[in-house]
């Protein structure tokens, strides 16, 4: 049986604007992935623990509030501590241009800004998760 890509979609921080997270969750599910949506106000610890329990291939974070430079480094270091460095981490939301290379540097791979299509995100995940599986 073909392995379904397992994605944890999470909303860290205090923000409650979840339209994007929910639309993307639907799109990934309709594209055949197994989607676990954490709901709102998840701490980095909760998100990483969900990824561990759910055996996630991908973590998708939705951040609109400007807190990404506080949240993402924390999540990346927790993943490393748990031995989950091979989990593909992507972020969607409002990310100012100067922060993009900084996020790439700490290992956040896909960064999806407003106007990104759902199809692009599906394709990106499909492509980058496969390469992870192949190299592991």
């Amino acid at each position, binding site marked *: 049986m073909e392995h379904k890509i397992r994605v944890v979609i999470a909303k860290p921080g205090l923000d409650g604007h979840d339209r994007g997270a929910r639309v993307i969750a639907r799109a990934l599910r309709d594209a055949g992935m197994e989607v676990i949506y954490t709901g709102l106000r998840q701490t980095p610890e909760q998100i990483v623990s969900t990824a561990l329990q759910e055996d996630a291939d991908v973590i998708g974070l939705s951040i609109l509030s400007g807190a990404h430079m506080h949240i993402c480094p924390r999540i990346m270091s927790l993943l490393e501590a748990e031995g989950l460095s091979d989990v593909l981490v992507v972020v969607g939301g409002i990310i100012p241009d100067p922060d993009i290379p900084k996020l790439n540097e700490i290992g956040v791979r896909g960064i999806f800004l*407003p106007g990104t299509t*759902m199809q692009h995100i599906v394709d990106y995940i499909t492509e980058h998760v496969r390469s992870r599986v192949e190299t592991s």
Partner: protein
Amino acid sequence: MKHSTPSATRARPAERKEPFTTVSGRVIGPLYTADDVSSLNYERDLGDPGEFPYTRGIHASGYRGKLWTMRQFAGFGAPEETNERYKQLLAAGGTGLSVAFDLPTLMGRDPDHPLSLGEVGKCGVSVSSLADMEVLFRGIELGGITSSMTINSPASMILAMYLVVAEKQGASWQGLSGTLQNDILKEFIAQKEYIYPPRPSMRLVTDIFRFCAEHVPKWNTISVSGYHIREAGSTAAQELAFTLRDGVEYVQYGIDAGLDVDEFAPRISFFFNAHSDFFEEIAKYRAARRMWAHVMRDRFKAKDPRSWKLRFHAQTAGVSLTVQQPYNNVVRTALQALAPVLGGGQSLHTNSLDEAFALPTAEAATLALRTQQIIAYETGVTDVTDPLGGSYFVEKLTRDLEEEALAYFDAIDRMGGMVEAIERGYPQKEIAESAYAYQRGVEAGDRIVVGVNAYVADTEEPIPLLYIDQSAAETQLARLAEVKATRDDAAVRRALDRLRAGATADANTMPLLLDAVRAYATLGEMCDVLREVWGEYEEIPVI
């Protein structure tokens, strides 16, 4: 009757697409005629402006008597920075203030709470005690302006801080005017900035109704908001339906709390989105007035005509702004802003061109205000009241939106009310379906978004953006520490104990919160007391 007009049955030349739909997916016919509005009775269904059911407006003189309030929502960083922006906006001809709070404030957390990390002053201004509120309005006479405050779960605490600042300035509460958003139901439905479960949250709302009816009679105690429902992806009809049904719920809870309907209903105001679909938006505002007039007179038996009149603020659609070719956003906003003006709104916020990226720069915020001034003074649209009244198309759309919204009323009434519907996740699911359908439409190319999926530019120049650094958080942490070091801790403890006792019993929370605020209790401390008593709400996540 579905467009059974002679012109519609005649053979038509090929059209550009099939079908033509509004941004909400409503199918629009090629032509509307007298047949489409033959069931309408002018006196009964429209009425002159200022006359029941107020379809044509709540004021007989429209904007000839008074223009709408140009109220630009603003707030960022520490209170010092926002205070400066307010003074600029008032100097530029703004006629009211509108406070945007940061996420920790909206969630009732102090800047030193772990969950506030990275969020202080980012999406709005940080206010955690009376000391912050005093800085926010320094040099601004609260008796001489009106202020709108976008705050919901901790609305009572923030109102208490505002009232104490006014008190210290020597302004009378009796004359004080402004608006508190205080609409917790749409938080559960759409924006998700809630703290307590629905029922104790509704008690806080009715406590404010009762307190203000007596002590701050000119204050708009609630702004029942469709804006966030629409931003979350609803259709125009869903925005209309859920917002007005939320309004019904508040009135019912007020009556159940023992208030006379005419005592508090005149202070209820509304807040709608001004989205891109021009005629559908105008029809939405007109339908809202007619529906509210009937609900208040017929369902709640209100006697005071002020209870029948729906007054509303509008804001252009943030969700329509694009990061691609951001100057296009100026044009979008101007066209969107025209709809609530033609729809008879009382107050308007126009978004800035850079708001898909960040909070606006001062220059972008000024341009947004100028957009309203150009509509008000150069286009001539304000010279006549309800200029589109009697348009076959607009009247038909108004009726169709009303009927669709009334069907939602029936569904929600059958569930037992809006609180019950929210607990079942009903409006949340309806909105999520619409949001997903819209996004698929954009990706299929059925909907053109200029600069995004058509007329795309190869390269784009970056625009100047407002950047909020960590200095706001440092200022706020320092002031919070100073407040805690200099206040009378025993007085704070006594006030918080009285608040706990009052909340556990049935006392009105407002006077208790005013005392806590006067003692410089922090927002987080006051909210935590109520968290202990009522617990916190957790949504069951659905996709």
